[in-house]
């Protein structure tokens, strides 16, 4: 009897250990949809309860998770689409069954200093990078109160052009994380695509 595939358990174990070393408790890399958000969200809440995580931290982590995953679903520039679906339309009746699958990376865990983190990464079109940077730099350094006022202002005046939500996702995360957030963009990760990472800390 010959072994068809050389499955190397050790390589997966070292992959797992690498995640552990980074403090990552939940990780997902792949195509995302709203059903995955629901499922991971439920498990995340349960894990935070089991760990008896402080309620304020738990609420912040969950909220940042929802906003960030919804951002990936809406804005990831890397998507899988059925080649036979004309126009590659999103399923308007049920986004969970949308024929477009966006790719993203999610990592939730605890840094060695005990701080919780929620990180999401996805490809963005290089042509959108400058605008995104400008948007994020405009809220850098703002405190909770200032972010709250900005959020209300934005909600009152309606979403900015190109937004698929209320246009306040990042402001809302920044507010809840008390300004403890950061981002990084790796330019030219792929042709015409940059790799965008956003992290919120609690």
């Amino acid at each position, binding site marked *: 009897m010959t072994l068809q595939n050389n499955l190397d358990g050790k390589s997966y174990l070292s992959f797992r250990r690498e995640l552990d070393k980074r403090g990552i408790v939940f990780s997902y890399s792949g195509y995302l949809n709203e059903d995955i958000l629901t499922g991971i969200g439920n498990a995340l809440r349960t894990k935070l309860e089991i760990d008896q995580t402080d309620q*304020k931290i738990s609420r912040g982590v969950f909220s940042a998770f929802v906003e960030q995953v*919804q951002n990936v679903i809406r804005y990831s520039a890397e998507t899988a689409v059925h080649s036979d679906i004309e126009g590659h339309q999103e399923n308007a009746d049920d986004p969970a069954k949308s024929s477009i699958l966006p790719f993203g990376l999610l990592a939730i865990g605890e840094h060695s200093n005990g701080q919780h983190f929620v990180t999401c990464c996805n490809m963005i079109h290089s042509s959108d990078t400058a605008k995104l940077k400008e948007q994020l730099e405009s809220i850098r350094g703002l405190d909770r109160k200032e972010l709250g006022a900005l*959020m209300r202002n934005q909600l009152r005046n309606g979403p900015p052009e190109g937004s698929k*939500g*209320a246009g306040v996702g990042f402001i809302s995360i920044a507010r809840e994380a008390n300004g403890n957030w950061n981002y990084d963009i790796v330019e030219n990760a792929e042709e015409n695509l940059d790799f965008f990472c956003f992290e919120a800390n609690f």
Partner: protein
Amino acid sequence: MDNIDISPTARTPSLKLNLDTYEFVLEGESYPEDTTKFYTQPIGQVIAFLGTKQDKPITCKFKLKYFNSSSAKVIMDLFTAMEESAASGNSVKIEWHYVADDDNMQELGEEFSEELSLANFELIPV
């Protein structure tokens, strides 16, 4: 106009408009897959109700455990409609219920209430 009675799901709140008691209640979790699809029809009806002269006081109760930023837009639209309703002569009271140790939800209520001057607003820790 009919009463609205939408049952909650894991990601959407219970949404009720009672035309006998003049009470609107939004309760539970709000991070729908598609915010527009969930809210447009019922909230349109609630805003129409608020925009009509009513002969009894209107009470709007928010009892949300969590809402995402797309839902925050819906809440802002409701607060605007409630303030306009009060401005047009209706008696409008808004109750913002929150879990007593949830400072964030309390703050959000306080912040949204800054949109109001004529409608009554009450924070209710539970």
